[in-house]
């Protein structure tokens, strides 16, 4: 029976229950899933406010709706958790002397993304380089990997001002901060991935007197690709965080960092603006991770893949 055979190979959760439209349109299915979760979160959000938030006063035209929640939880107050529609509405409010907030945030996100990309690229190269060095030298691996791990225990908010003082307040310093956050996952994944090649293939290559660079290029690197891409997705998200943190001590006005700073300082007067900014920071990270996924799908199409990762 073919169906039971398929069920035996593929883990049960991976198959859509009924192989209808959702199976033929995986992108659409993904969108419906994400939208559903978003609706659930929105429902829980507003339900908490209805139960225990500040009094509701909605006036649209002649229609007014007031509601006094029976409970009072601080976490559901208008300052902690603004109504979702105020967050959406604030996106269409113009920034003083500028475009609507959503356009302003999109511009800031692109600026931040550009810096993040430079930091990400530098971090990925550095991480891969370190990984290559470490898999070829046990001595260097033992001597240096603890330092690499240690580097990540230092809070980035402490590193960023030091980098800015040393290199000057410019986007280059910011990219360096992003590099600092991104090289680590790549280096660790590279160490594992470069060792995850098929041993039999390695022995075969050695029996043909293949050089170390040949083994690296033809065997180790291809084997490491799935590991590297998992790390690159983590690194992409981290580079956006690193860039936003790095923008603060650099006094860079164009990016998301300044928006976070401004709207934090004025949080009490308009909490929805910080929430909108938080959402756009998250979107920026997601877009970057999505780009990495896209690159992965493109680069690994029809390539050699190890049996199990």
């Amino acid at each position, binding site marked *: 029976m073919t169906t039971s055979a398929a069920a035996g190979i593929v883990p049960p959760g991976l198959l859509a229950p009924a192989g209808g439209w959702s199976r033929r349109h995986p992108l659409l299915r993904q969108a419906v899933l994400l939208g559903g979760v978003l609706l659930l979160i929105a429902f829980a959000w507003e339900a908490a406010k209805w139960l225990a938030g500040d009094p509701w006063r909605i006036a649209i035209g002649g229609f007014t709706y007031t509601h006094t929640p029976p409970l009072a939880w601080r976490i559901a107050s208008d300052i902690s958790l603004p109504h979702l529609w105020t967050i959406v509405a604030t996106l269409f409010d113009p920034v*003083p*002397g500028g475009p609507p907030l959503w356009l302003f945030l999109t511009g800031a996100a692109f600026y931040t993304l550009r810096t993040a990309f430079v930091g990400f690229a530098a971090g990925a190269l550095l991480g891969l380089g370190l990984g290559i060095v470490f898999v070829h030298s046990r001595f260097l691996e033992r001597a240096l990997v603890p330092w690499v791990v240690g580097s990540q225990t230092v809070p980035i908010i402490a590193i960023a001002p030091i980098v800015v003082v040393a290199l000057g307040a410019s986007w280059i310093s910011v990219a360096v901060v992003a590099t600092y956050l991104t090289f680590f996952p790549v280096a660790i994944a590279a160490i594992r991935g470069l060792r995850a090649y098929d041993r039999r293939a390695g022995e075969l290559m050695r029996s043909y007197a293949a050089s170390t660079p040949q083994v690296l290029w033809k065997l180790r690197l291809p084997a490491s690709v799935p590991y590297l891409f998992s790390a690159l997705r983590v690194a992409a998200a981290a580079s956006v965080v690193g860039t936003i943190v790095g923008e603060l*001590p650099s006094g860079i*006005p164009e990016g998301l960092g300044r*928006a976070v*700073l401004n709207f934090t300082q*004025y*949080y*009490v*007067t308009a909490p929805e603006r910080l929430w909108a900014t938080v959402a756009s920071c998250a979107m920026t990270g997601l877009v970057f991770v999505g780009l990495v996924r896209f690159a992965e799908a493109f680069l690994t199409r029809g390539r050699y893949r190890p049996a199990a990762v």
Partner: protein
Amino acid sequence: MNKSARIAGMLVGAAIVAAACSSGSASPSAAALIPVKLQLQWVPQAQFAGYYAALDQGYYTAAGLNVTVLSGGPDVNNLQVVASGGADLGVSWVPKTLQSREGGTDLVTVAQVFQRSGTRMVSFKDKSIVAPKDMAGKKIGSWLGGNEPELFAALTKAGLDPTKENVIKQNFDMVAFVQGDLDAAQAMIYNEYAQVLETKNPKTGALFTPADLNVMDFNDPSIGTAMLQDAIFARDTWLKQGSNADTATKFLTASFKGWIYCRDNPQKCADIVTKAGSQLGTSHQLWMMNEINALIWPSPNGIGQFDTTAWNQTVDIATKYGILKAAPSDGAYRTDLAQAALAALGSSVDTKGASFQKLTVTLNEGGK
């Protein structure tokens, strides 16, 4: 008209167009301008309107200067930037400049722009805190980190011990105050105080009003613990190099002009600051401009001039509350540059603003 005259006319026309197109930094005269970098202590906002106005109105260029204004921020150490040569002049509160000097820099205050302190203690009416003594046993908010001496001095004067009172570290916002975590909170009259008035009272759905609040003013003679705030400083070594002292004087003259412009055109200045990249709401920006004007004007000795009594009070309080270990060394401030700048403004300009009147600014929700 013969042919050559026509060609000459065309050439002149082309030259005019070219000159018009290449205005600003690309014009040949820009090469002759002296480059000056000014480091602010915070992001662009009306607190620094005078400098942005001087840029916008071309006062710096007219004085032969090409001024770059560097934005500050919570993690930007404005004093360190100037001390390390990253900028020529900076804006800072006086006690912080003195503290940096005690730490080994050679920073000198050259002009005292703000004549009054903008710091207040704000509380809701139902807490009945109208004088420093009423803060006994209350949850008192302060930004600390060098922002507390005015408060501590006021508590001490009222017979309280600041180290025994419940002083809570406050973020640079009013969230904790509005949520009731603080009974009294530190607030700049031009910023955080306005934020409260731009916030809806969740109980009523209407904005908070001044009638909901008690405000204590450290400038008030009954409290009398105000310290000097925004002042312009520079490195001593920079000032003594070449013609830099002269450059500084030109900078001060043009900056003073900018502040005078903002006194007379508050709305225009608020717009200039917004154009310079401030993201504050329209009503908040104008409120800030108006209150900043009130910290500068009237300037009894003329704009930017020093008042020895205020200076000594600042030093005394800073020394008593551990901001400074000892009174500052000689040369912590010099009056000659600001005096020369004032003289350069001439007698036709009102440099004292004795008849200055504040506007009435209405704040909107979220500062819009």
